[in-house]
């Protein structure tokens, strides 16, 4: 439809009628093709892009309605206006049933006919627009590439009426491959790879021009030497262009469908291709967007996991720092205490010694005697404190034994149980299934456990429960002593191992200091987790002794 002119076929056996219409329509800018018989008219429809046919209802060898039927088989959207003489109105209405737009009666008036033609073509264009609208709607109904390709193939088959079709896109090596096809052999579909310039699709890609090929390639100088598929009668090869950027090639072939593609089909294919290109471009953008989005999600997740790692590292670091401060503090205190012990114990010896000697005398004054007794008692108390301090600074290293910590705890619990139960506290044990052998001085560890259990008892202060659980954890035996007591705030936790630090009225503040030393001395670790109102868990880690018999 070059120059926006329409092709009009006039089929009438009367030369005068043909001349009259030919001249009249030519003058008004239409291309006119003439045919004197139904057969000739059908042939013209096959070979030309006829938009509208003016068809005599009475032709020598064929009824007009039959001729229209044949033409419609070739060109389903062809518009028809029937020409009738006297007494042939019925035939004309028959044709209307078969899809003719209208009819005119002889004698003919060119003005009237032109008006009718314009209206018919308007309707024709409207029909095409509606079809185009429907196609756009379908094509833009999805943005997912795979769904889109399915829709494209489906629409192509329907709109362009083909026996097979394929959409070729570019792979990563910039070669054309068949992204989707209908009616193609699987091998062709899978194996076809074309460089730009190679074969027909390659040609269309190189020159960004669409092709209408009829009766194969034999007579086309552009494809000399290219062997096409013999069975193909006509083809449309259309580049899919978006702003001059080549996205792929759309190809449709006819083999069995009797009539060939014509220029109208090519025109239609071009419009269709521009819609397809737009949709493909959208789908590509969407694909890239989704890829970017996935990347963002992935980066986000990685970031989150880094943050979690960092937090954990930070917590570990804080923990190590706290332990370092703790052990440094303990070491310094230990040295101080050891030096102090010697200096304090000698005067204590003298005070208590003198008191003891005095009490060996006969003392008449009861008051004096009482005073001396108190001095002795208090010096012994001071001795006791010094002794515990020394234990903390340098727990004596006795003989180490290979002890199953479960057995050791199981032995300790019955001894303290009655006393705890009298205060309303139950003790529950939850031992590991396998024995946990550690190399320790058993009575020291038991002393430490006892200390912690007593603290738990004091923290509960009434009814409650203490759970002693043991587990193997990496290379350590882990003992958790959990109480349902009052818990402690962080500032208490920070000082819990400091000698003389106590929250109890009658405490010496040495219990946990000694525990700490004992456990550290066994190359283990002691830590507490607690918060006010939620109880406290003391966790002891002792290195498992995997040497010796299992």
């Amino acid at each position, binding site marked *: 439809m070059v120059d926006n002119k329409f092709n009009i076929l006039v089929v009438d056996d009367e030369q005068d009628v043909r001349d009259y219409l030919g001249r009249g329509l030519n003058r008004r800018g239409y291309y006119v093709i003439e045919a004197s018989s139904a057969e000739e008219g059908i042939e013209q429809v096959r070979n030309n892009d006829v938009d509208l046919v003016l068809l005599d209802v009475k032709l020598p060898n064929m009824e007009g309605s039959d001729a229209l039927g044949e033409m419609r088989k070739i060109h389903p959207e062809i518009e028809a206006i029937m020409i009738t003489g006297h007494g042939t109105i019925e035939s004309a209405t028959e044709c209307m049933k078969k899809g003719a737009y209208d009819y005119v009666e002889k004698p003919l008036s060119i003005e009237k006919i032109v008006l009718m033609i314009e209206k018919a073509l308007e309707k024709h264009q409207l029909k095409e627009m509606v079809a185009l609208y429907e196609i756009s709607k379908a094509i833009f109904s999805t943005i997912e590439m795979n769904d889109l390709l399915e829709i494209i193939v489906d629409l192509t088959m329907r709109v362009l009426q083909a026996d097979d079709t394929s959409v070729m896109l570019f792979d990563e090596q910039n070669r054309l491959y068949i992204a989707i096809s209908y009616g193609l052999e699987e091998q062709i579909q899978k194996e076809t790879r074309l460089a730009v310039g190679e074969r027909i699709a390659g040609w269309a890609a190189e020159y960004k021009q669409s092709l209408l090929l009829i009766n194969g390639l034999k007579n086309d100088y552009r494809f000399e030497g290219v062997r096409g598929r013999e069975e193909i009668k006509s083809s449309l090869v259309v580049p899919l262009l978006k702003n001059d950027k080549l996205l792929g090639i759309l190809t449709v072939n006819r083999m069995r469908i009797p009539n060939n593609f014509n220029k109208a089909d090519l025109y239609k294919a071009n419009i269709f291709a521009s819609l397809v290109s737009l949709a493909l471009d959208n789908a590509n953008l969407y694909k890239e967007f989704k890829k970017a989005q996935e990347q963002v999600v992935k980066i986000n997740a990685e970031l989150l996991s880094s943050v979690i790692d960092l937090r954990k590292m930070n917590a570990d670091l804080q923990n190590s720092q706290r332990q370092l401060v703790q052990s440094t503090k303990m070491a310094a205190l230990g040295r101080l205490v050891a030096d102090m012990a010697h200096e304090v114990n*000698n005067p204590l010896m003298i005070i208590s010694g*003198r008191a003891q000697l005095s009490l060996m005398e006969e003392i008449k004054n009861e008051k004096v005697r009482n005073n001396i007794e108190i001095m002795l008692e208090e010096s012994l108390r001071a001795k006791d404190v010094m002794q515990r301090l020394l234990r903390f600074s340098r727990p004596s290293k006795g003989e180490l034994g290979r002890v199953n910590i479960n057995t050791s705890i199981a032995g300790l619990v019955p001894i303290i149980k009655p006393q705890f139960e009298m205060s309303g506290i139950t003790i529950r044990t939850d031992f590991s299934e396998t024995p946990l052998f550690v190399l320790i001085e058993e009575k020291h560890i038991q002393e430490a456990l006892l200390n912690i259990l007593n603290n738990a008892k004091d923290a509960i202060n009434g009814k409650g429960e203490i759970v002693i659980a043991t587990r193997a954890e990496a290379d350590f035996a882990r003992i958790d002593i959990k109480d349902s007591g009052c818990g402690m705030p962080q500032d208490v936790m920070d000082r819990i191992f400091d000698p003389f630090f106590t929250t109890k009225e009658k405490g010496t503040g040495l219990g946990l200091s000694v525990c700490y030393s004992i456990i550290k001395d066994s190359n283990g670790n002691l830590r507490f987790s607690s918060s006010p109102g939620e109880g406290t868990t003391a966790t002891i880690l002792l290195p498992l002794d995997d040497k010796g018999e299992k």
Partner: protein
Amino acid sequence: MKKILVVDDELRIIKILEEFLTIKGFEVVTSLGAENIHEILDNDKTIDLMVLDMKMPGTSGMAILREMKDKNINMPVIIFTGSVDIKKYRNELKEMGYDYLDAIYKPVNLQELFDKINSKLS
């Protein structure tokens, strides 16, 4: 009468032990620190038992024990100490025939000391 040698670097402690052990019927000789220990050990072969302080300036209790070993002087020794330092010598003490766990710590219950002396002498 059994003879007991008391070695300590604090005169007041020596005096307490001297008084107490005398009351308990022992003959007591004393050395303030290692001051006259060599003389006593070399000349007096009648000493039955020694109460020995460990931490003393100059010659320590350990040094005295080593010297006694060198000179092949054998007698029961009660280690009398103000600190728990001696555990670091436990192997050496063991070799010399002493048990570090047998030590008596200051300040001591005098009756306890008396019982220990009696058990060593019996």
